[in-house]
């Protein structure tokens, strides 16, 4: 596939100096449905220009001379594209592999083909950047000189916070040595994850540690030639995350280290990982954050004029009278807009014909689309060659190429595509789970934001309540942790109404995790249940007083009865149970007056036997040096008396 150009000959002479880039034409994800059926992700048009064009522009500016384009699907269109981009500045070579399904496969394939001679830049098919990659590669080389095992430098862009809706999927936690940017830990944060464990060693072994969640992976990696063989040796590396995790875990064995590099704050990069990111990228290109990669400065798309409020118009675009282009919009060459048409935050591709009185908001209309009068298009993506008849109403829709919609039809929240000649409508919200969130940028944005924020705030509350409970009980570390774990699971179980059987399983698994003996388990479970109302009440923000505590405790005991029964079976366990009650009563004032009713309850429910209670009472009596135990004794006195009487009664009955 490679074309032999002058540059190619030159490069063979001076092998060392040739800078190479590998671009994966596909990113092997389906986040941008249905793009993968239409384009390889690298040819996805952003503001009317395929992503690859931007990339090539950046690479040429960075003096990269060889580009390997790795394609695994849509090979014909890529071939055609590369032929059209005949350029002296950069030689584009295609590496074709049909069966490749992941980034790992691709790199293994590249390794076997042996195209890589030195340090290279690996770019995933959805990346966009205007950074000077040559300088960054130089930095990477300096790093390699210091550390022979430096395998890769991650390029991360500091965006301040990834806790905004369009980037939330991309947020990751990076822990690095502050002095030399060596990555110690790298993890994509899942949406529902609230806790991350930080290793103590990181802090002990390094003078300076940098922990950051405001960094965005640009999907551009500066790699030493050792990277493709690493992929070959470890066939389980599928994604870049696998690779990073694998290398970090086996740093010693593989003798490879990963570094990271912050992009200059003036440089821009954003990978198109979802429709939301696509939306953000389009807007920021139009707002010129990506300068010089903007429609009016790109050398290959001439004749765009930059107008106020970030709107662009091609010289050959025709706007009829009364036509308003409000903001963040672009109208491509040979497109015609009809009378009184209103456009805001939208891109309109080449050769589109839009009728009169059409409203287009937040939408992307690719080339050769025909829209008739009085249509309303909101939050939608319309691929090329579509046709919309009069008064079509679209909201949050994605139209596959060549869809024809009849007049007066109206669609909301759908993907429209032709399947064997019939128009197929799929609800976006009903698509499989991992993609719907990405697509949802179009609708109900606000509600989602709220939810996300909540997720973060409860996180901090949880941890603080744990901290409160910790100093109250002077137990050894593991047991203490176990106790708080049990409290956590029980509280959650109670609030969410989980099955007690499942909670038992959960408690058992934490028992093994913290290596706690069975006697401690029963002790701690009871203690946890008794202190639970306090946590519950503070969670509910209701006042903690005697009445509240007692009523909640009653409810909880009946709810968790199965659990109590499960753990308090043996006599030893009963001892532990009583001890736990005593211990709890000394710390929780509200429990003290409830003590005798509690004993009664357990007695009635056959959890505690009469003998054990009396035995405990007697034993407790010996321990007079403690004021509290006296109080307890006082508190439960009437019950013991009753118990003794009852015993006498029953023995009398027996005699009878």
């Amino acid at each position, binding site marked *: 596939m490679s074309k032999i150009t002058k540059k190619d000959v030159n490069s063979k002479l001076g092998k060392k100096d040739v800078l190479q880039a590998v671009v994966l034409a596909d990113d092997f994800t389906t986040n941008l449905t249905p793009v993968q059926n239409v384009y390889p992700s690298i040819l996805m048009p952003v503001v009317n220009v395929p992503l690859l064009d931007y990339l090539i522009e950046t690479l040429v500016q960075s003096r990269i001379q060889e580009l390997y384009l790795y394609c695994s699907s849509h090979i014909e269109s890529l071939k055609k594209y590369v032929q059209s981009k005949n350029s002296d500045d950069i030689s584009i070579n295609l590496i074709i592999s049909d069966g490749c399904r992941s980034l790992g496969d691709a790199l293994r394939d590249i390794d076997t083909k042996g195209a890589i001679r030195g340090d290279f830049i690996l770019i995933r098919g959805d990346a966009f950047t205007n950074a000077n990659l040559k300088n960054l590669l130089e930095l990477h080389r300096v790093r390699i000189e210091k550390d022979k095992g430096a395998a890769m430098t991650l390029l991360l862009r500091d965006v301040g916070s990834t806790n905004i809706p369009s980037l939330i999927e991309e947020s990751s936690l990076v822990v690095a040595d502050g002095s030399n940017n060596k990555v110690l830990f790298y993890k994509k944060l899942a949406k529902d994850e609230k806790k991350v464990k930080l290793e103590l060693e990181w802090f002990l072994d390094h003078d300076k540690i940098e922990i950051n969640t*405001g960094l965005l992976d640009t999907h551009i990696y500066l790699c030493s030639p050792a990277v493709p063989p690493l992929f070959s040796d470890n066939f389980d590396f599928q994604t870049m995350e696998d690779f990073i995790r694998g290398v970090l875990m086996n740093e010693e064995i593989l003798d490879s280290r990963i570094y990271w590099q912050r992009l200059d*704050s003036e*440089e821009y990069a954003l990978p198109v990982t979802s429709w939301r990111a696509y939306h953000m990228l389009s807007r920021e290109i139009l707002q010129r*954050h990506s*300068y010089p990669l*903007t429609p009016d400065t790109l050398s290959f798309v001439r004749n765009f*004029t*930059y107008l106020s409020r970030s709107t662009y118009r091609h010289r050959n675009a025709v706007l009829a009278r009364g036509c308003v282009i409000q903001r963040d919009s672009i109208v491509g060459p040979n497109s015609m807009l009809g009378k009184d048409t209103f456009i805001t935050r939208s891109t309109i591709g080449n050769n589109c014909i839009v009728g009169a009185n059409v409203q287009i908001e937040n939408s992307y209309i690719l080339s050769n689309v025909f829209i008739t009068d009085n249509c309303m298009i909101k939050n939608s993506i319309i691929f090329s060659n579509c046709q919309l008849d009069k008064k079509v109403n679209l909201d949050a829709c994605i139209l596959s190429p060549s869809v024809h919609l009849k007049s007066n039809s109206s669609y909301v929240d759908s993907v429209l595509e032709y399947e064997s000649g019939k128009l197929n409508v799929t609800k976006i919200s009903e698509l499989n789970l991992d993609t719907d969130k990405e697509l949802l940028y179009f609708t109900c944005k606000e509600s989602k934001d709220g939810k996300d924020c909540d997720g973060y705030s409860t996180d901090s509350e949880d941890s603080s309540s744990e901290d409160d409970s910790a100093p109250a009980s002077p137990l050894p570390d593991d047991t203490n942790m176990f106790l708080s774990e049990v409290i956590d699971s029980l509280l959650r179980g109670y609030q969410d109404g989980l099955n007690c059987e499942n909670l038992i399983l959960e408690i058992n698994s934490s028992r093994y995790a913290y290596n706690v003996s069975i006697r401690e388990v029963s002790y701690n479970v009871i203690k946890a249940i008794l202190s639970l109302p306090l946590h519950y009440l503070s969670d509910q923000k209701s006042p903690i007083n005697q009445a509240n505590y007692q009523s909640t405790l009653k409810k909880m005991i009946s709810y968790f009865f199965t659990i109590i029964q499960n753990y308090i079976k043996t006599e030893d366990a009963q001892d532990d149970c009583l001890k736990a009650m005593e211990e709890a009563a000394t710390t929780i004032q509200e429990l003290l007056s409830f003590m005798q009713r509690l004993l009664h309850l357990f007695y009635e429910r056959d959890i505690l036997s009469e003998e054990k209670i009396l035995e405990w009472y007697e034993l407790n009596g010996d321990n007079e040096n403690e004021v509290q135990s006296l109080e307890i004794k006082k508190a439960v006195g009437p019950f013991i008396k009753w118990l003794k009487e009852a015993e006498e009664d029953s023995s009398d009955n027996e005699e009878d």
Partner: protein
Amino acid sequence: MIVTKSENVHENVLKLIKDINFGEIKGTYDIVVATVSVLKEIITNSEWNTAKKLMDLITLNGKYLIAAIPLEASIGNMVRRILKIIREEYRSELKNKTEEADGQESLHKILTSEGDQEIDFNVSVPSLKSSLIEHINEFEAELETCSENITQQASEHIHSNEIIMTLGRSRLVEEFFKKAAATREFEVIIAEGAPFLNGHEMAVNLAKAKIKTTLISDVAIFAMMSRVNKVIIGTHTVMANGGLRAITGSHTVAQAAKHYSVPVMVLLPLYKLSPLYLRSYEQDAFNRHVAPMHGVIDGANAPLMEKIQAYNPVFDYVPPELVTLFISNTGGNAPSYIYRLLSELYQLEDYDL
């Protein structure tokens, strides 16, 4: 840079475009010199036999250059200058050929001579090439001495104990001050020129040259203007009406100066004088809008960037009525005299290439 290769465009032109776009050739002066040498190369090395053909060739390449780098108006100026030189040389060569004896131009002859339209550029004149090269060499020498000629005039404009304000950094203005400082003492106030803040560098350079220098932020321009005797600034281009395309902030400075009736002097090497007008502020290729991250807002604040829209234009347009005097390499000229300079420098036919 993906340049669709055109058969007729000279390869050096393509190289020049690449160099400018890569930032290897920076600054108007360097661009001008590079452009002239490329055009000279075309004249010497390509095949042509008549002046007409040569002019078409230059126009073609020139148009290509201008389209590729629309912001550097001086490139267009140079193309027009070379065309004018070709016309002049051709005319004089033609005259030498026909009426060998009389080389002198009298006023009478100028008045009675017929317009250019009547001259047939299709006549082949073999000696044209050598005389052209000679003339262009002269022109190159003129370019070289251009800034020197301007700085020579420094002592005429800057007097002892004056307070002078300038904005940002201009190599020419810096030389101008240094030249004046050799013979007298004066004070310079430099507005830093946000968001690019070139003024900082300028202040350091002037302070090193033992000139009393004060660096102020742009917001203080108006407040400081009352004590300033003179404003001296550089410019990127001068439009045909005498308006300036200069770095952002220039308009502020000029308006503050107007308010306090402080004279504004603009250093103008003549290669920066363009025969183009400003049509509207939305004009294609009048301004360069760079990323707002270049000094306006912090890139490391995504939540904020999502909500706001920031603009970052590089140039200001300063209308001619705010300019008191242009100091060019041929002397001081008022903005109203620009039209005359234009007709001296360029041929009317070449205004619109």
